């Protein structure tokens, strides 16, 4: 597997589109969190009485892990996009065929794509971790460093993996980048949110367990915690993690089956 990953590295090492998008992702992570940070600072300064509701800054340890995880998660469509590009490129160049002609098995191919997905999720998580670390230190200093609340780093990893694997699934199912990207965005941004809203309203909260919702809900809205906690009943984290894991296995199982049995 490590050997095959090196081959994947050869594929992307000189692929400029990939690195530009990855670079934008890193910049955006810091950007979106800085916007959150700036808004909070501004609010506290202009209306000190709001501090009653806001509580202490959400950018101090230990809360910063959850805050950064939440804000960063809005950008997880970018690693999803990278995954879709990486798989649909193979289809459009027909290199998925050539890799197999040259001696990979079909399983080699799909397993290394799974490994790509995990690495991409780990990379995204690392950036989020560094952002949380940086914002936490700069808000409260080194002495305030605390890893309590860092379970959100793991939840963010689950969320990233969930977005990336669903992107891989759409890539494998639709093969062409245009349609795969379209369906991915439509699903992630519109369809699932609508379905979740309807299900939550009419079917007793099961909307929270839809594929992407199940990981979205792992990380709660970090601001106005005092108020939100009293109003909103949060779905159980354990059940969310179980649901998310089942979905992850299911996505990969479909990809694998599809790639093994189809004409390529």
């Amino acid at each position, binding site marked *: 597997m490590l050997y095959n990953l090196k081959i994947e590295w050869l594929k992307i090492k000189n692929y*400029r589109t990939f690195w530009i998008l990855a670079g934008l992702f890193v910049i955006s992570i810091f950007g979106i969190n800085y916007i959150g940070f700036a808004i909070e600072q501004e609010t506290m300064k202009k209306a000190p009485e709001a501090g009653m509701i806001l509580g202490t800054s959400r950018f101090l340890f230990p809360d910063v892990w959850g805050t950064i995880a939440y804000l960063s998660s809005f950008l997880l469509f970018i690693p999803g996009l990278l995954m879709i590009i990486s798989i649909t490129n193979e289809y459009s160049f027909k290199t998925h065929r050539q*890799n*197999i002609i040259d001696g990979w098995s*079909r399983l080699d191919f799909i397993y290394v794509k799974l490994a790509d997905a995990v690495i991409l999720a780990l990379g995204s998580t690392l950036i989020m971790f560094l952002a949380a670390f940086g914002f936490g230190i700069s808000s409260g200093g080194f002495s305030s460093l605390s890893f309590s609340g860092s379970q959100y780093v793991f939840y963010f990893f689950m969320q990233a993996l969930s977005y990336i694997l669903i992107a891989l699934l759409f890539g494998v199912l639709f093969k062409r980048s245009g349609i795969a990207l379209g369906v991915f965005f439509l699903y992630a941004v519109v369809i699932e949110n609508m379905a979740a809203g309807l299900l939550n309203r009419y079917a007793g909260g099961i909307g929270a367990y839809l594929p992407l919702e199940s990981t979205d809900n792992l990380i709660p809205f970090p601001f106005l915690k005092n108020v939100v906690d009293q109003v909103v009943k949060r779905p159980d984290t354990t059940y969310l993690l179980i649901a998310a894991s089942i979905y992850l296995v299911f996505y990969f199982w479909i990809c694998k089956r599809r790639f093994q049995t189809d004409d390529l």
Partner: protein
Amino acid sequence: MDVLAVKGITKYYGKICALNNVSFSIPQGSVYGILGPNGSGKTTLLGIIMNILRQNSGTFELFGELPVSHVRRRIGTLLETPNFYHYLSGEKNLQIAAAIKQKGAGDIDKVLKMVNLDDRRQSKFSTYSLGMKQRLAIASCLLGDPEVLVFDEPTNGLDPVGISEIRELIISLAKQGKTIIMASHLLDEVEKVCSHVAILKYGNLLTAGKADEVLVNEDIVEISAKDLDQLEHLLNTFQGVSQVKRLEHVIQAVFPPGKADTEEVNRFCIDHGLLLNHLILKKKSLEALFLEITKN
């Protein structure tokens, strides 16, 4: 030993039968031409052997064993189109191919020179012309010096010089004892290099075997005289003639391969008081032969 043995392979695309119970085998060291018109199933057959298409029934063996992925590393294959990463240079694409084959990384310089692509090795694949893409694909096949080469329409997109270079290359590879499996609809190409042929049409294997046995090429003697009626009548009595055909201005006497003797025909006619004004020995064109085999 057979390099490849195909046993009863059938493949459907929906309702369309692309291959119908095809069986044949390819002996080691042969240059095996798979012939057929467009859409006859040549690429489908090679795709199944390369495990990128799934057959509905039937099996095949490579090197005498049921196929597993690493066996494909012993075969250099160009299937249908050159498949490379557009954003990478020719050289980097070959590095990927060599890494997957797990051999041939040291051959990259050599194979690029063999296909005259050395000076463009650093250019992106997307900037290559069709002929250059095809050359790169052939270079990729040669990585690691494989025992067997599969070429699907190898001269596609090449200019006349390129075509003759690739033909020379194929002949020299065959001389080195490599087995070459070549699908083509260019009969000329096949005639010049192949020792064996199989002919496919609408997914049915019409015939397969040694080229000189499958493509039996009869001798045709074209003759004319003032009195064609008399000539036709006379030729029908000539020993060894298998068919006499009357055309507009000439008569064609068909003989089994290599059996026509024009001198003998001439003497025969003169002895019977008929002077000839036209006498020529022809081979039936491979094209005509191919059309004959594939018609209905």
